[in-house]
């Protein structure tokens, strides 16, 4: 069932398990803040996966030193840039979700999603 590269790819396995933990957190928690934390754990897993994808053994960070410009000297710079994009978007999304949560708390005085939705149904909305 498992391929031959399970042990060399241990870092990616860790990223996948982190992703699963975040997803389970998102599904199982009732507290909205904890749901947001779960989503952020999922984000982190994706960053870890991307950063590992760009790594090449024995090479240095992509900053030109002493005019050396061979491909063999540096790691892949593209995943680093993608991780940067991801972090910025995740910060914005987290701020947006937190502000929506604050609004919900001001309206219903609870962070429990089940209670909020049952109260919404009782109000007939």
């Amino acid at each position: 069932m498992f391929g031959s590269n399970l042990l060399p790819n241990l870092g990616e396995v860790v990223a996948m398990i982190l992703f699963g933990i975040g997803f389970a957190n998102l599904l199982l928690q009732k507290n909205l803040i904890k749901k947001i934390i779960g989503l952020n754990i999922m984000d982190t897993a994706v960053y870890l996966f991307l950063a590992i994808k760009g790594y090449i053994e024995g090479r240095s960070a992509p900053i030109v030193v002493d005019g050396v410009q061979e491909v063999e000297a540096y790691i892949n710079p593209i995943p680093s840039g993608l991780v940067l994009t991801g972090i910025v978007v995740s910060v914005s999304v987290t701020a947006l979700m937190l502000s929506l949560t604050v609004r919900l708390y001001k309206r219903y005085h609870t962070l429990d999603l089940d209670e909020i939705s049952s109260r919404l149904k009782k109000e007939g909305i």
Partner: protein
Amino acid sequence: MSRKISEEEYKRQRIVRMKHWLSGEKDLYLDNMEVIPREEYKPDRKQLERYEHDLDEVMTRTYDTEHNRVYRFFQRFYKMAAVLCCTVLVLILIVEVSYLPPIGSASNPASNEVAAKYIEDGLQDTGAVNIVTGMILDYRAFDTFGESNVLFIATCTVLILMRNDKKKGKGSAEDEERRDSFYEPKKDVILQMAARILVPVIMLFGVYIILNGHLSPGGGFSGGAIIGAGLILYLNAFGFEKTERFFTEKTYKAVSFGALLFYCLAKSYSFYTGAHHLESGIPLGTPGAIISSGLILPLNICVGLVVACTMYAFFALFRKGGF
């Protein structure tokens, strides 16, 4: 009578019959059957009470989550299904990962000719020693522009959601005063002393990281985040009264909008000249010097300004609902 036709005849006319039929008095097709007008609805009090009682009962039984068997079953089923779902997902992903090429090998499909082009020609094309900075602010500058806009739009949305309207309701002076004293810090000596020493160092470090974005690790995003952290520390130590002297909503708007506008115009210019194979006329300078690599340094400063303002704005909005 001065009628030309008798009443009988008049009633037999087609248009009159049509009119009668339309108003529902007689049905022409059902052998002149009269349609009985509906009785007016007279609510019986007893019936109404019973109806309301029934409705109440149904509602309480539906939302009685403690004793509702279906609901309890759903809760348990949901938890089990969620755990099962996550486990299966993680297993599938791990199996996938075990077939991927090993980490750290140079023959990975991810390190293809695109990465090679960035590494080999990056210094000549962009003038930036840091290849990642050269990539995100020159080859892929449009992407970074979108990112800065995402930050700006996120701040705008948080502003809409978190703002406390002073005109609505409790806008009285004493309420304002109570809120201000509530949000102002309690003259913490340790925090103020630490901030007095740390804030200038943090600011300088942030500026250093932004200005050296094309030479060393870092750039607009990380440097801007550091400056934002310094601003937040200053705000925590000395309160809104001090920060409002140099940073208000107007400052935020002007700085963010100006930085984004400059970014947009500068990149439009370089895209235009690049697409038409024109000389852009922007000197790249000697690689390694502070003032080099063409547009990358000003763009880094723009991004840093936007990020610093956004970080501070998020904090101020969440704490007070305004700047």
